[in-house]
């Protein structure tokens, strides 16, 4: 099923939660909605599911207007962050629910439903839990049941709201891989919400970065990392080092900065801001540089170095302990960024290079 969302807006009273969402999703695609808390991810998902309605805009699935369709008729598989299992039903009955509620004419026979549930229990790797109640399950097991319940109706679209939010890191990793496999097997168009970048990039074909009710950027992990469309995306992707620089002939210049590894930008000369990830900066000894190593700490794999300038500005640099050259406290170093994003000083988004998305005209902070 292809989903076409256009100019969707939604406010709760005075708060604008969605400020014009345009998004197209291909049939069979797995798309992640990534964004900080409160950016409107759940609201967008609920609108697609028919559990909420927008103030304006359109939502079409395979050309059909879904805003005219109640949730019951959309054949959505929705997995809630809290799982929302039916507490008074066994795992088996929970999974079968979507099939048993169908009107008599469309309802499969009892044995067909049982077979379908058994098949799902196998796919979910929980056949031994079939007769338990939700309170007798662990978080990860509940998660699987919630997914099984959603998959049972062979949904046209699968929507997952932070499906792994409440689980520990090891189980998250397992379930991620497993969900990806389920997706390969079922090929249902899937949108899942997360605020974990790693999760989004590992699982999704495309990632949609949302911020304050807008789509900031759509792309693959590499596109978003290398060419963030706005300072917001750059910061959200971990480019927390922000340096004022001067642009000259497409190159950025600043004292103690060696930008030779960065590609030239087709941007006008003038003041600009450079966004860097702490782990994408190399340090080279340079007595003329204003940056002095003031602190370093190791976590075993990574050395976190802090560089300090005379005016008190500090910036963090992450060095791989086994491959980066040794650094000494008190010595001066030149910054040699490997990748970075440049935006003009007013904040207008211009990162140069191929851009995966029509850039936003404005970015309000």
């Amino acid at each position, binding site marked *: 099923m292809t989903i076409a969302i256009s100019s969707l807006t939604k406010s709760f009273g005075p708060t604008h939660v969605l400020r014009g969402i345009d998004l197209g999703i291909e049939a069979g695609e797995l798309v992640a909605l990534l964004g900080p808390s409160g950016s409107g991810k759940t609201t967008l998902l609920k609108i697609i599911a028919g559990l909420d309605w927008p103030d304006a805009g359109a939502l079409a699935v395979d050309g059909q207007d879904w805003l005219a369709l*109640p*949730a*019951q008729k959309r054949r959505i598989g*929705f997995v*809630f962050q*809290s799982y929302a299992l039916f507490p*008074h039903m066994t795992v088996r009955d929970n999974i079968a629910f979507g099939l048993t*509620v169908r009107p008599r004419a469309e309802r499969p026979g009892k044995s067909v439903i049982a077979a379908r549930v058994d098949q799902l229990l196998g796919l979910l790797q929980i056949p031994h839990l079939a007769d338990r*109640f939700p309170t007798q399950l662990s978080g990860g097991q509940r998660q699987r049941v919630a997914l099984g319940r959603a998959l049972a*109706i062979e949904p046209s679209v699968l929507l997952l709201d932070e499906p792994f939010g409440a689980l520990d890191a090891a189980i998250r990793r397992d379930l991620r891989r497993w969900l990806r496999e389920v997706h390969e097997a079922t090929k249902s168009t899937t949108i899942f919400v997360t605020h974990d970048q790693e999760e989004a990039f590992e699982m999704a074909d495309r990632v949609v970065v949302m911020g304050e009710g807008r789509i900031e950027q759509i792309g693959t992990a590499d596109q978003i990392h290398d060419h963030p469309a706005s300072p917001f995306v750059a910061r959200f992707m971990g480019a927390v080092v922000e340096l004022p620089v001067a642009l000259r002939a497409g190159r950025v210049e600043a004292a103690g900065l060696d930008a030779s590894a960065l590609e030239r930008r087709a941007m006008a000369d003038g003041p600009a801001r450079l966004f860097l990830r702490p782990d994408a900066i190399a340090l080279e000894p340079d007595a003329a540089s204003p940056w002095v190593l003031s602190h370093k700490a190791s976590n075993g794999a990574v050395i976190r170095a802090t560089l300090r300038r005379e005016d008190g500005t500090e910036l963090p640099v992450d060095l791989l302990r086994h491959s980066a050259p040794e650094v000494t406290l008190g010595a001066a170093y030149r910054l040699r960024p490997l990748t970075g994003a440049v935006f003009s000083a007013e904040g207008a988004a211009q990162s140069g290079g191929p851009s995966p998305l029509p850039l936003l005209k404005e970015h309000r902070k």
Partner: protein
Amino acid sequence: MGRPLVHRSPMPGLGLSMGITLTMLSLVVLLPIGALLLKGASYGIEGIWETVNRERVWAALFLSFRLSLFAAVFNLIFGVLLAWVLVRYRFPGRRILDASVDLPFALPTAVAGIALTALYAPNGAFGSLAASIGWKIAYSQWGILLALVFVGLPFVTRTVQPVVEEIEREVEEASATLGATRLHTLRHVIAPMLAPAALTGFALALARAVGEYGSVIFIAGNIPLVTEIAPLLIVIQLEEFNYDAAAAIGIAMLLISFAMLLVINLIQVWSRRRIGYV
């Protein structure tokens, strides 16, 4: 060295609090019931049977339990509905309505009885209206039912209300996305979740109605065989210093109540096992 045989509870002071609780329970509940049974024992089973096995007593017992059951069923339906409305809807006056649910708890029952009688007597505000279509409320069994509904309602509403508050919206939303109509969700998702609490409220309302005296005697009219409730019969016996007879009727009520509560409890145990939670 063996392990200690007595496993200590992780809860502090369990022994002490258990002791206090049992003592209080004995003093307040078990001792009076024991005294009642003792009184009955001195009277003998035959004596009890002779007292109870009279038309007037049977009529009163039947009336008491039948109307209590009707009132409790009505309260079950209406009380659950009221709890639902109070939790789920926002309307002007909601807080006042919410607070007034407790009125039957707070009001002396005699006051409630007199007020209801004044309203529903043939010359009262509602009573005259009902009388115009030939419906007599006060001084009939309808009046008794009305009083029993009044005193029992808060039991159901107040037990069910917190459970309604706890039901996640998302459970209903999940049901909707799976294709269930509103009615189906109500019957197969919400009702089973409310059932244990509603049943508890029902049992409480029923027990209260069976024992209710103060409000009923004002509105009932107290005509033997027609509107005379069993507790009134006990009081009448007491006023005639007929303690044995009073105890006998009391024991009869106790046994019937006990049997009814037992059945309700069994239903609860069964439903809990079936539902597997709570």
